[in-house]
């Protein structure tokens, strides 16, 4: 019995960037997108844009494959190969979701503020589940702080502004990156007062070390990959 992954027509069109309609290249694309999203989320100082379409697609593939595996007798060589691959992809996916949750817990007021202030047409930064988690986390933290400390303070000091209390993500952190599409005239800001700012060109395939702030839009668009 052969296990064939979910066929191409079920992949959301937005995930397919190449115009070639070939099962294998699409399947490989999905897997490399997951790995890229995992690495970007791991190394970026702020919460990246939500990739719920990709996550759902991969979950669908995994459950489809698992169902197939249930129907086959144990000890089949093919089944063990598929199972190993499923475990690998599951690890990447869990690690990706865990990084996102860690960042949500660390920056929860800012994440919620960003979500509230985005326009209706823009893609959301949080999946519905993550949004619910962030709101609950905020509510629980407020209740906790109130019960443990705030209610014992004098009345005029009993409020707390979460946006000021919780530090923001530091977008000026340094990151390592690899360039996927050539970029020109990226501004490099000076570290000290004596230096002046200068521009660099990023060639395809080169690797660099620089501040996250200037290249943040390039990471979001996929032109560079954090490593």
């Amino acid at each position: 019995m052969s296990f064939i992954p979910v066929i191409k027509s079920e992949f959301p069109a937005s995930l397919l960037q190449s115009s070639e309609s070939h099962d294998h290249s699409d399947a490989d694309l999905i897997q490399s997108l997951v790995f890229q999203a995992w690495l970007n989320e791991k190394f970026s100082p702020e919460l990246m844009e939500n990739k719920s379409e990709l996550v759902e697609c991969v979950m669908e593939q995994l459950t489809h494959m698992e169902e197939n595996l249930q129907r086959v007798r144990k000890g089949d060589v093919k089944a063990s190969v598929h199972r190993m691959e499923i475990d690998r992809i599951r690890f990447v996916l869990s690690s990706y979701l865990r990084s996102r949750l860690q960042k949500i817990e660390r920056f929860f007021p800012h994440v919620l503020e960003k979500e509230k202030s985005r326009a209706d047409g823009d893609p959301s930064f949080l999946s519905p589940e993550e949004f619910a988690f962030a709101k609950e986390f905020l509510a629980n933290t407020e209740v906790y702080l109130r019960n443990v400390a705030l209610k014992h303070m004098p009345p005029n000091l009993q409020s707390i502004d979460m946006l000021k209390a919780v530090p923001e993500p530091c977008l000026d952190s340094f990151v390592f990156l690899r360039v996927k599409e050539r970029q020109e005239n990226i501004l490099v800001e000076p570290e000290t007062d004596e230096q002046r700012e200068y521009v660099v060109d990023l060639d395809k395939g080169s690797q660099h070390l620089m501040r996250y702030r200037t290249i943040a839009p390039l990471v979001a668009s996929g032109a560079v990959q954090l490593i």
Partner: protein
Amino acid sequence: MDPAEVEFLAEKEMVKIIPNFSLDKIYLIGGDLGPFNPGLPVEVPVWLALNLKQRQKCRIVPPEWMDTDKLEEIREQERKLDTFTPIPSLYYMELTKLLLNHSADNIPKADEIRTLVKDIWDTRVAKLRLSADSFISQQEAHAQLDNLTLMEINTTRSFLLDSLNYMYKLRSNLQPGRSQDY
């Protein structure tokens, strides 16, 4: 990032094996593999090659660059130049370790290869330490590091990035502003 995670990424690389069993094509989520015929070479990802080797179902063919002459050349190049020479595989360290640990019997002159790769690694990491040191002391804002592999970057990642971030915070603390991440 854990070195184990870097190794996890390295395991996606393809390597040639010679199976001793037969199996028709497997349609994995990440692409197709096979068909497998005894005695005929086929390309599979390293994670699968290692597993099959452990179950004694295949022989692993070492990659082209895993050869004493080539590696000696690379080592000489590396020792001569101050910059990082291009190396044949982005994951040379991980692949050497994995393949030599699990299938040293399939690889000729395994011990020599191990020593050569270790020498190359030591030279490169020493160069990396020097350039990281000068990066910090000259307070540069940008560095280009082509030809560096992920495993090498990973050895200095936490130290270098954290120090650069703290230095930035110390400098920018002179300006009033919103609370920053500590």
